[in-house]
């Protein structure tokens, strides 16, 4: 297939996944600030939402204060934020138009329909109940897009490139949440048990849509080190780093088989999968959760570049 087509498919998938991740971040922040305990807290949940989305400088350039209005506006709608939900859908649809022939009708319907509906949500008016509606709309959009890709695409290179896009983006999003919130997950005795922290842990689970999954996996009350385990090492959890790399490695191998040739991206993905498979949570805490996550973000980015160089340029 055309390198440009593959590139568009890959980025289309990334943008759709990013829109979903942003919606989850907004959802979690909105729930957390509604907690009475949060009112006296020193950290501002809206600020950490901006940090998790990775766009602090852009936000600071436009607003003085992070609150419900400014953050929702910036993360969901702001045209000057290249990674706002609106821009994700806009650019995603533009990519989709450019590779219309590589998409199934169902996938095009999902993204084009969402793009048309997006215009019903107005920046200044999306708060409270309307914000909840907006968040569900975005989540449903990515579900529909992902679902129609899964159900209708031929299992060929086009499918593999769109999967790779989703997984690279998903690994990045999960790692960013951990990067911003790592301090509440540290198993220091002093931090454990405070009511505020409890809601922080729950909020982290919510930001990866894993509130319920947690209990199915651990059958335990919410413990910070188990939250970290779920998001980093647990392969049952589709948004964990380990699960992302299990699939990245598999799909890259499929691609190598499809084309009959291996390259740098296959090696990088396998390397990270081995690291994650051999890691234990105790060791990660021991050598520093923050450092571990920081290194992961760099490596994940490196894999993204390797895929681009090998297939998409």
């Amino acid at each position, binding site marked *: *297939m*055309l*390198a*440009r*087509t*593959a590139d568009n498919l890959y980025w289309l998938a990334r943008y759709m996944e990013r829109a979903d991740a942003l919606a989850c971040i907004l959802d979690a922040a909105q729930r957390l600030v509604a907690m009475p305990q949060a009112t006296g807290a020193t950290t501002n949940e809206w600020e950490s939402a901006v940090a998790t989305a990775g766009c602090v400088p852009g936000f600071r350039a436009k607003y003085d204060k992070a609150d419900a209005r400014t953050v929702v506006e910036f993360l969901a709608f702001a045209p000057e934020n290249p990674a706002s939900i609106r821009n994700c859908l806009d650019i995603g649809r*533009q990519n989709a*138009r*450019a590779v*219309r*022939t590589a998409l199934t*009708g169902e996938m*095009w*319907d999902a993204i*084009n*329909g969402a793009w*048309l509906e997006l215009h019903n949500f107005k920046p200044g008016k999306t708060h409270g109940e309307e914000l909840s509606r907006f968040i569900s709309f975005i989540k449903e959009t990515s579900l529909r897009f992902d679902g129609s890709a899964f159900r209708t695409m031929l299992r060929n*290179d086009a499918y593999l*490139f769109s999967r790779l896009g989703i997984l690279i983006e998903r690994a990045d999003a999960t790692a960013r949440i951990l990067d911003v919130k790592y301090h509440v997950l540290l198993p220091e005795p002093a931090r454990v048990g405070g009511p505020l922290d409890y809601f922080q842990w729950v909020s982290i689970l919510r930001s990866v849509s894993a509130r319920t999954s947690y209990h199915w996996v651990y059958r335990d009350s919410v413990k910070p080190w188990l939250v970290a385990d779920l998001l980093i090492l647990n392969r049952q959890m589709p948004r964990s780093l380990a699960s992302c790399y299990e699939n990245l490695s598999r799909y890259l191998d499929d691609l190598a088989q499809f*084309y009959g*040739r291996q390259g740098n991206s296959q090696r990088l993905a396998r390397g990270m999968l081995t690291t994650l498979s051999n890691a234990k949570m105790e060791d990660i805490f021991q050598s520093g959760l923050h450092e571990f996550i920081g290194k992961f973000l760099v490596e994940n980015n490196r894999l993204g570049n390797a895929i681009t160089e090998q*297939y*998409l340029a």
Partner: protein
Amino acid sequence: MESQSDSIWIDPTLAVGMELALTRPSNVSPAAFDEMRAPDGSIRPAYSALAGWLTATDQDVLEYRRREAEFIFRRIGITFAVYGEAEAQERLIPFDIIPRILTAVEWVKLSRGLEQRVKAINAYIRDIYSKREILRAGLLPEDLVYQNEAFRPEMNGQQVPHDIYVMIAGIDVVRTSPEEFFVLEDNTRVPSGVSYMLENREIMLRLFPELFAEHMVAPVENYIDDLLATLISVAPATAPREPTVALLTPGIYNSAYYEHSFLADKLGVELVEGRDLFVKGSVVYMRTTEGPKRVDVIYRRVDDDFLDPLVFRPDSVLGIPGLMSAYQAGNVTLANAVGTGVADDKAIYSYMPEIVKFYLGEEPLLNNVPTWRCREPEHLSYVLERLPELVVKEVHGSGGYGMLIGPTSDRKTIESFRAKLKHNPANFIAQPTLALSTCPTLVEKGVAPRHVDLRPFVLTGQDRVRIVPGGLTRVALKEGSLVVNSSQGGGIKDTWVVDL
């Protein structure tokens, strides 16, 4: 030479005698041919079932179906861009749900004429870029060819496979009476609109299966197979047995991008932009995830000017540097060929009856609209005298822009156009206002006659000419209007060729 042009000089009284009645301002002319209703009010046979259905169907139901059709169009993303309208970058062409009907007998006659015309056009272009016998015979003024912006000296002596230059033509025809079709315009560069022909039919089949049960409508969906067969048949001799075809688009900002992606998808060929292709050793390759892949036939939807910055416009970012060298080496076929515009400007148009006779030795089966060339002084003075009665068009104009429709224009418009015309007469031609036929159309107040034209698509391959029955019917939705262009408020209809 003068005597040649005299032969197509049409006296206005003669024009009326030929039933080229002038339309009256601001209303459907009583002289316009109504394709459904005869002058005595009776329904013509082709429309009898449809007329019955229209009478039996409630206006609200029609309106509901119309909205449904619009919804489907928007959903599947059939939109077109209007240049110079920032806020309405993607617009829908209004779709009229009432089909336009031609009988199989009428169609056979029309399609014979189309085939003849396109054959002559191909012979003419070949001649222009080789022996130029038509110029030597004095049938065409030389400067009309050599000074023509669309003339490409790079094509002189260039061989093209099977001498086919125009593989895909869109010939605009209008109907003025039960028997008479006039060609309004030949589109021999990159004609568009065929995706609408195909999608209109899909939508009609979805919305009105009961109507198809009552009519024997000739299918159009085989257009895609015909197009692919045509493109493969003109592959260069050096190409493998299964040549690689690609469709070259200027990109998503082009007004016809939807059509490009639609066709590439149906054809099962890659939709490429200039940056996806490169030329090495006079061979064209596309960049794929597995490395370079050779391309043999390019169905290009990019104008000549932008094809190759090394030969044509150096500022073009849409083209492929070196493409012309590969083309000249015979390693790739471009469809349509380069330089075909020398056949479709409006000044050349006026010579089309001579061109048909000269190359085929046959009388033209389709009429040409009598045309005054303002470059010729006596034509000009005739036109200046009768501006309020005439349609004046730019020689290279398209899309319904830059034209004057005398009968529906006010004095001020006419006078300012007169100044433009006097300033550069060679840039204009004038024609009598044709009474375009009308078809029943769903408008706000119900079903009413509106003027229509028709663009059938003519495919010319190595083995034969293929024309699917029908084409794209465009309809002027405004009462009395004769401008059917989508950029100027025109709509579209499904076109049915039925066996009675």
